[in-house]
C-alpha cells in the first residue's frame, strides 16, 4: 500500500502534473457531451422501443394468463353443471325405474289375484257341475234300480201285485236306503 502510494507521488513529480487525481476539464467536457448525446440517442432509438416492447409482452403474458384462468373457471363451471345434470338425470331415471317397479308389482299382484279368483270360480263351477251331474246320475240310477227291482220283484212274485203298488213299496224302501 505504501509502495503504491509512493509510486503515485513519484509519478506525480516525474510526469509533470499528470497525476491520478488530476481532473482534466477537457475530458469532463467530452464525457458530459458524449453522455448526453448517448442518452438522447439511446432514449429515442433504443430504450423507448425496447421498454415498450417489454411492457407489451408483459401485458400480453398477463392477459393470456388471466384469459386462461377465466377459461379454466368457465370449464369448471360447465363441468359442474354437467355433473349436476347427470346426477339429476340419474335420479330421474331411478325414480322412473322405482315407479315402474311398483307399478309392475301391483300389476303382478292384481293379475295373480284375478287369475286366482278366476280359477276358483272355474273350480267352483266345475264342482257345482259335477255335483249336479252326480245328482242327475244318482236319480237315474235310482230310477233304474227301482225299475230293475220292480222287474225282479215282478218276476219273483209274478202277477200278484200290480205295477203301481209295487213301485210305491219299492220307492219307500229305496227312500229308506238313501236316508240310511
Amino acid at each position, binding site marked *: 500500500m505504501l509502495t503504491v502510494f509512493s509510486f503515485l507521488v*513519484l509519478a506525480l513529480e*516525474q510526469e509533470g502534473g499528470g497525476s491520478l487525481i488530476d481532473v*482534466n476539464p477537457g*475530458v469532463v467536457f467530452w464525457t458530459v457531451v458524449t*453522455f448526453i448525446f448517448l442518452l438522447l440517442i*439511446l432514449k429515442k432509438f*433504443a430504450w423507448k422501443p*425496447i421498454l415498450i416492447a417489454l411492457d407489451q409482452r408483459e401485458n400480453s403474458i398477463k392477459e393470456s394468463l388471466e384469459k386462461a384462468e377465466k377459461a379454466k373457471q368457465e370449464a369448471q363451471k360447465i363441468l359442474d353443471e354437467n355433473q349436476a345434470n347427470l346426477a339429476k338425470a340419474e335420479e330421474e331415471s331411478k325414480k322412473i325405474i322405482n315407479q315402474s317397479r311398483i307399478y309392475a308389482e301391483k300389476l303382478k299382484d292384481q293379475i295373480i289375484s284375478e287369475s286366482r279368483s278366476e280359477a276358483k270360480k272355474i273350480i267352483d263351477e266345475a264342482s257345482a257341475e259335477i255335483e249336479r251331474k252326480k245328482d242327475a246320475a244318482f236319480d237315474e240310477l235310482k230310477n233304474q234300480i227301482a225299475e230293475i227291482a220292480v222287474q225282479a220283484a215282478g218276476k219273483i212274485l209274478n202277477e200278484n201285485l200290480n205295477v203301481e203298488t209295487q213301485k210305491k213299496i219299492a220307492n219307500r224302501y229305496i227312500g229308506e236306503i238313501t236316508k240310511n
Partner: protein
Amino acid sequence: MFLSQNANTTVVVDTLTKAAQNNSDPSWIMHHVLDGHSISFEPFGTLILPQFHVFGFDLSITKHVFFIFLIAAILIIIALSVARTYKKSIIPKGFANLFEVLIIFVRDEIVAPSIGKGYESFLPYLLTLFFFILLSNLFGLIPYSATVTGNIAVTAALASISFVVTQFAGIKSHGAIRYFKGLVPSGMPKLILIIIIPLEILGLFTKPFALCIRLFANMIAGHIVIFSLLGLIFIMHTIYVAPVSVGFALFIELLELLVAVIQAYIFTMLTALFIGMSVHSDH
C-alpha cells in the same frame, strides 16, 4: 533491451525501456493508467491524437476521450440492433436476450425499488448510465484499450450528471423552494439550524463525490495491481517470477471482471437511490 525477448505480454513494451533504464522508476505504471495524447499499439506503433484548445480550454481528444467515443458508438450499435430485433418478434433471441436480462435487472431490481412510483421517467438515464459504465469497465480489461472509468475526470463528469439529475428530480416533484426546504429537517431550533444547514449542503455534494471516487478508485486499483504484478518480472530481471506474476495477475483480472459489473451496479443503484430520496424527500 534484452528483456524484450522475454516479454510475452505485449502490454508493456514501453514499460520495458523505462524499467530497463531505472528499476526504481515507477512512472511506467502511471503511463499505463493515465490519460495521454497518444494510443499505444506497441509493438505495432503509436497513434498520436490531435490536440486543440478552444477559448483557453484544452479540448483535445485524449486517449480516454477517444475510448469514450468508441464505447458510446459501440453501445449505440448494440442497443439499436437489439431494439431492432423487437420489431421482428416480441420474443428476443440470442444476444438480445442477454441485453434484455440486463435491462430488466436494472428496471426491476435497481430502479423500480429505489425510486418507486414514477420511476419510468428516470429509466432511460439510469439504463444509459448502467450500460455506459459497464461497457467502460469491461473495455478496460481488453489489451490495448484504456479504462476510461479509471480516469477521475470521467467519473467526476458522470457523478456531476447524477448530481444534476438528482437535484432536478427533487425540484420537479416538489418545486424549488419546497425541495430545498425539505433538505433541512423541520422543527429544529434556530441555533442548531446554523450547524445543520451547512451540513446538509455539504451532504448534498458528498454523495456525488463519493460516487466519483468509488468508481475511479475501484477501477484504477485493479489495473495498478495487475500492472505492478506483471512489472515484477521486469523489475526483478528474471523470467522465473513470471508464472507467479501471471497467475496473480490472472486472478486479479478475473476479480476485475466481477468488480466491473459490481461497480456499474453500485453506481446505478446509488444514483437511483439518491433520485428516489430527492423525489420522496420528506424529512
